[in-house]
């Protein structure tokens, strides 16, 4: 048995234990630790003995019986070393995928009107990803994918009369293929009325009145990429002539808000940063312009996965960046503790990782096939490329397709192989991990040119992040327990958006 717990402290000095079996956070001290160790066959240390000596037999008995109670009822605090991964037959895999898949993503085009410096397709810094091209999805290909998806979802839809499926339009820049969006939506309204909820992720530069009319008419909700004030946004988001795009985007947003205020209220912003970003300035920009900008739902760092992008940054960049991040995090904590709503940018950036602590899995949220890390089964969120090739999701490089809509759909043998590889290469140490329920490793983050593997430094980073997030979470609640409801509401709202939009 491995003890799978993490001790941490609040800023105020309270001591806690996170138990990875139950997912619970418990007030905890050296006495509890000594008692637990003893239960697990580890003799107490001298300081622990000293603590034990300070308490009455009554208290020691109570703590012992509590720990035994939780060991007996919930198998808390320790886990078998053996990894208990379920292996599914191809038929079972198909059944699981189709029962759980809720979002279909369509890459409408491989082309883009911009040439962003960090783009995984056009920057050249991500060798595993495809290169930009003028290839676009045809209407025939799109409806073939949609019909195939719905046909396979029939049993799950029969099981769940309330089910609405997500349809996400991606690119490249999906608005380059607005005609296809219109055709698809008309098709859906005729063929599958009410079944799909459609969204698109766009840079917003092409958002003319005519395009807006189409999106509004068909209720396709937009997530707009906006990286901050003009100088920040235009440092990263430029067109093929190297010109900034901020002015054009903001003008489009202002017009859209004026013409369709109700639709505008449903839109979201997605923001990206790298170590050169001035996070304080960006946060202030979003805060000052909350009335003018859609709510910021995601703030993500440019990915370093399989990339040379980060070679260009200096130690000075990183230092300044870390200081700014810390400062925003402190600001988030201060505002939350006061029971106020942090700005949407601050929430998404600083509160983003605390979501994992708020919405962490608990005892009954066990997965079976991939029991550790945050990995979902390939196919739960499938992405269709312009040529019908299927990817695990929009975040992977495309090196490991899981089938093709034009060639029999899902390749269950391939999915089975990928799952086995993940189980073999990534999971073996996870049963001993004290924060496996807080780990976000998945196929997109474990993918390398050699296959799926655990990234070097990932576990150490996850452990440190988890300890910090748990500490921040509990420090806020220790200072003001009343904010828990607000915390949960905001976390759930962001999670809702995350199921639909590119994060």
């Amino acid at each position: 048995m491995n003890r799978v717990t993490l001790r941490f402290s609040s800023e105020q000095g309270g001591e806690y234990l996170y138990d990875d079996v139950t997912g619970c956070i418990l007030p905890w001290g050296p006495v509890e630790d000594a008692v637990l160790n003893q239960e697990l066959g580890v003799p107490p240390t001298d300081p622990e003995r000293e603590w034990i000596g300070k308490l009455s037999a009554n208290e020691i008995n109570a703590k012992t019986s509590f720990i035994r109670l939780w060991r007996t009822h919930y198998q808390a605090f320790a886990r078998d070393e053996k990894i208990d991964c379920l292996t599914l037959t191809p038929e079972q895999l198909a059944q699981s995928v189709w029962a759980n898949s809720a979002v279909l993503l369509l890459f409408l085009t491989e082309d883009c009107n911009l040439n962003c410096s960090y783009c995984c397709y056009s920057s050249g810094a991500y060798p595993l990803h495809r290169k930009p091209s003028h290839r676009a999805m045809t209407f025939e290909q799109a409806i073939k994918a949609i019909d195939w998806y719905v046909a396979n979802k029939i049993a799950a839809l029969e099981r769940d009369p309330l089910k609405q499926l997500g349809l996400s339009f991606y690119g490249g820049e999906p608005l380059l293929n607005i005609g296809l969006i219109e055709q698809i939506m008309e098709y859906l309204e005729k063929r599958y009325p009410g079944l799909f909820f459609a969204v698109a992720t766009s840079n917003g530069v092409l958002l003319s009145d005519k395009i807006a009319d189409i999106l509004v008419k068909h209720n396709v909700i937009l997530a707009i990429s906006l990286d901050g004030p003009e100088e920040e946004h235009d440092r990263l988001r430029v067109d093929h002539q190297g010109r900034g795009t901020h002015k054009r985007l903001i003008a489009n947003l202002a017009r859209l808000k004026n013409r369709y205020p109700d639709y505008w209220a449903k839109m979201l912003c997605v923001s990206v940063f790298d170590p050169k970003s001035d996070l304080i300035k960006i946060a202030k920009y979003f805060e000052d312009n909350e009335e003018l900008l859609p709510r910021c739902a995601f703030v993500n760092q440019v990915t370093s996965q399989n990339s040379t992008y980060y070679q260009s940054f200096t130690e000075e960049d990183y230092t300044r960046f870390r200081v700014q991040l810390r400062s925003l995090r402190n600001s988030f904590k201060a505002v939350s503790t006061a029971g106020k709503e942090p700005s949407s940018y601050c929430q998404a950036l600083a509160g983003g990782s605390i979501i994992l602590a708020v919405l962490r899995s608990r005892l009954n949220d066990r997965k079976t096939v991939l029991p550790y890390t945050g990995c979902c089964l390939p196919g739960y969120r499938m992405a269709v490329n312009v040529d019908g090739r299927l990817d695990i999701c929009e975040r992977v490089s495309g090196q490991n397709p899981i089938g093709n809509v034009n060639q029999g759909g899902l390749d269950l043998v391939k999915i089975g192989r990928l799952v086995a590889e993940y189980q073999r290469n990534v999971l073996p140490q996870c049963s001993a991990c004290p924060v496996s329920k807080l780990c976000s490793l998945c196929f997109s983050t474990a993918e390398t040119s050699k296959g799926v593997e655990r990234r070097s430094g990932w576990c150490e980073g996850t452990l440190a992040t988890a300890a910090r997030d748990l500490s921040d979470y509990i420090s806020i609640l220790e200072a003001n327990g009343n904010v828990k409801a607000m915390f949960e509401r905001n976390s759930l709202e962001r999670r809702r958006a995350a199921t639909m939009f590119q994060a």
Partner: protein
Amino acid sequence: MNEKTSLPYFRLRSDCFLVSGKKGSVLYDVTRKKAFLLDQESSEFLRLCEGPQPLKDEWRKGRLHHFLDLMIREGLGFYYPHPVYVDNFLLESPINHFGGMAAPPPNYQVAAWHITNQCDHQCAFCPTDFSNPLWQACLSCVRRHNVTEDPALFSDPVAVIEQASHLGIWGLHIRGGNPLLEWDRLMAILRGVARFPHLKTTITTPGTGISLEQTLSLYEVGVALNLNIVLFEHDPDVFETGDGFQFKLLDALEKKNAAFDIAVVIANPPLVYKDSVSRKIFNRWGRRPRFVEFHTLPEENGTPFHFARTEDGRKRLCKWANATEFFHRANNRACLHGGFEVGLDGTLRACAGCHHSCGKIANSRLRNALKEEHLYDLWKLSKEKVVQCMDCGLRFACTDCLAADLLGATNKRVAAGYCPIMDAGDCFNNAKSFQHDGFVQRLSIEKGLEDA
């Protein structure tokens, strides 16, 4: 407080929940399946102890000291050196109780199908409309007036069963009236059910109206069948020696080793009657009956409904089997969750005893009717949301199925028409008044721990 400790803060265990009532509170020890009734003084003191300030010196002496010491000894809370935050114990991530695209499908369990209003009895208390519902009406037969049958529903019963099966239900409950009187329809349904071997079927019937042989032939259709035979109030001795048709049927079912249950519909039963009937039925047929209770009390203040109370106006409290059940009760209306009833006319209800229509099946499309949110709202109507129940500390141990129904139907607000455990808002002082199976104790600064 114990002399040895100097730890200045007290916190309840994370799986112990202090639930407020109008007067006093109930402390639920979820894992150990115990409920402690606290009077107002004790619950207010506990809340103070859980506050951000350290325990006051005067709390470390005398009766307050003994009370906290008792809490520690019972393992309900601990002392800490810091004002720690207790993050409540949950079995599932909050994400699971949130809608959204990735939400799991509704957990359908059992579908009831009211297939006929025909009946060969004329029971005086048959709740032919919803003015006179029964407690646990789901176990009894219920005739309904003024219902126009939807012939489309019965023209292809297999289609309805198939849709229900696709929803994931494991149980089909066929009800009436007396379903045996609609023999052809019943057989068509059972033959349809036979195509779905995972479905277990229950037929609730008085068991009369056809021959014994014909009734027994139901077990030959090839479905997992259970007959729920509804008996009516008799002198307890009759259950021991009676040789009427229903008793002969029960004798025959037992001899055949067939699956069957017994529900007894009774009016205003004293506890002693129920115990006696239960014992006699057990002795004769080897199973305990379930009671469907009908109560009439004089009108009060012009309120038309006074019924469904038992044992001098009280229902028995019910312990939760495990933490999962506790949270299920806390988040849902447990007796409705997972079920629905299809009426003769296609009306969808949360259960046979419910007034509310939750939609209507048109063209035999069950799935379309199940898109209505109202059914799921009723499933999730936890007692936290019911006026009167929300003021009762015992709300998570109460399993009454009707209390939240009455005023909800008429006043468009969800309120309990009565308290099934007799004014349990003051549960500490009323502890002697309600029934439980020993899992409830009183805990107070004044008297320490006592049996309730």
